Structures are given as structure tokens and as C-alpha cells.
């Protein structure tokens, strides 16, 4: 099974991409599946670390939380820009010690933090596992620490570790 189909997630997403681009028909499904399988075997020859998702049931909750936060921070950042850059706090760097070690989980955290307007992932020190962020409207460091640790990192650790 794992020799024949080394990366099931990659194969499924490649087939879906192929069908979306080429239009759905049986011939395209066959062609897309062959290309996805060849791509997965090629990738297996390179032997990258395989991501493991332990808790599939928590993924919708993560998506809902991230969606809500992106909408909320879009409104917040847009109103700050429209007020000419005036805000309550000031933009500054802050560091957060992380407990998350899984590379896929860290990649997901990077995507979540950077996609959300108002926060940018700047640096990650893997030896001490300290994350450096830049925050647009930094009022209370403890609130941001609580948000990253309890809202995102907790869920990502449940999913990936």
C-alpha cells in the first residue's frame, strides 16, 4: 500500500487540481491519476519527511477559527490604515517560546500567522524553538502570547503530534 501509493494526500490534491484545470471527464480523471501517481513516486525517490495528521476531526475547527480571525483582523487593519496609521498600541517585534516541534505543524502555523493581516512571522530559532513575530498593533504582549499559544498552537499540537 505505502509502496504503491506513497503520498495519498499529494495524489488526491494533484488529481483535484488536474480536474479543476482540465474539466471533469473519465479520460481526464485517468490522465490526472497517472500523472499524480508518477509525481508521488518521483517524490518518494527523494524521501522527504512524511507529514502525519493524527486528528482529522479537528481540521474543520481550525479552519473555522482561522477564517473568523482573518475576517476580524482584516477589518481591524483596514480601519487603522484608513485612520492614517493611528492606533492604540505600536508596531513592534515580540518573541514567543513554542512547544510545537512537528515541521508540518510549524509550516501551518507560519501560514496562519502570515495570512492573518497584522501579524508577520519573522524568524524561528529551531535550536531554542523561539519564534519572532512582528505585530502591527501591539497593545498587550500577554494577550498575543495567549492567542498564539492557546488558540493556534494547542490545536496544531493536537492535530499533528
Amino acid at each position, binding site marked *: 500500500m505505502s509502496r504503491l501509493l506513497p503520498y495519498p494526500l499529494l495524489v488526491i490534491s494533484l488529481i483535484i*487540481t488536474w480536474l*479543476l*484545470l482540465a474539466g471533469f471527464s473519465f479520460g481526464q480523471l485517468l490522465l490526472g491519476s497517472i500523472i499524480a501517481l508518477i509525481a508521488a513516486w518521483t517524490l518518494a525517490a527523494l524521501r522527504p519527511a512524511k507529514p502525519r495528521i493524527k486528528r482529522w476531526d479537528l481540521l474543520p475547527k481550525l479552519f473555522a477559527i482561522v477564517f473568523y480571525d*482573518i*475576517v476580524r483582523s*482584516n477589518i481591524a*487593519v*483596514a480601519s487603522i*490604515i*484608513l485612520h*492614517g*496609521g493611528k492606533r492604540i498600541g505600536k*508596531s513592534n*517585534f515580540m*518573541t514567543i517560546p513554542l512547544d510545537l516541534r512537528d515541521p508540518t505543524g510549524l509550516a501551518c502555523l*507560519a*501560514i496562519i*500567522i*502570515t*495570512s*492573518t*493581516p*497584522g*501579524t*508577520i*512571522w*519573522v*524568524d524561528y*530559532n529551531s*535550536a*531554542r524553538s*523561539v519564534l*519572532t513575530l*512582528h505585530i*502591527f498593533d501591539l497593545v498587550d504582549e500577554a494577550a498575543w502570547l495567549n492567542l498564539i499559544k492557546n488558540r493556534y498552537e494547542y490545536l496544531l499540537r493536537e492535530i499533528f503530534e
Partner: protein
Amino acid sequence: MNQATNLPEWAALLIAVFLIIGAGLTLIGSFGLYRLRSFYDRIHAPTLGTSWGTAGIVIASIIYFSAIEAQLVLHQLLIGAFVTVTTPVTFILLSRAALYRDRAKNSPEVPPLDLPDNTPAPIPQNEQTVHHDDTSAGKP
């Protein structure tokens, strides 16, 4: 636009709302890029365009093509997925490059290099940076 004669009005209104939200947020993001003072402030502004700016226009496009072709057209979602995956890569790389350049110039507004314990500090290699056009880095 001529195919839209038999488009129901509620669909046209929905498309209009999403288009205006998407284009408006993108405009606000670019205005912030133009207006804000320091680089680390400015890097936050374009994320408006890449999050809900893109999402709004992609959703409007999906509704429009699904309505005029009378079937579900979803290939625009690929653009949304592509932008979601690539934007963090470019912004993280760009902010790290800016941090590296500001640290090499000992700018006071960036935090010092966060070294792992028991490692000697590397010598800042600012002779490798080719461009020296930004002499005003130390100013706020």
C-alpha cells in the same frame, strides 16, 4: 457581460458585493503600502489584498461563472489556494531579508540576533549586500 442577460438579480447583487469588498480591501492594502512610515509597518498592508481581497474577487468570479454556465465552476479556487500557500513564503523571506539587512547595519529598531546558546556570534557580512542605496536605515 452579454451572457448576463438572464442572470437573476440576487446573483448580480451578490457578485457586486463580493467584487466591491475584494477590490476595496486590495485598494486599502495598497494605500497602506503607500502611506505607512516604516518597512515593518508596510509589510502588513498587502496582506489585506492577499487574504480577503483575493477571496472576495475569487468568490465573485465563482458565482458569476457558475450562474452563466449553469453548473458549478470551481477552478478559481486554485488561485485562492495558490495565493494562500505562496504569500507566507514571500513575506517571511522578505521580512527575514529586511531583518538581516537592518541587523548588518546595526539599526536600533530591530531586535538583536537571537543566538542558540554556546555559539559564537557570527561576523556581520554586510560586504556581501550589493546595494547600498538605503543609507537612511537608522532613521525612524
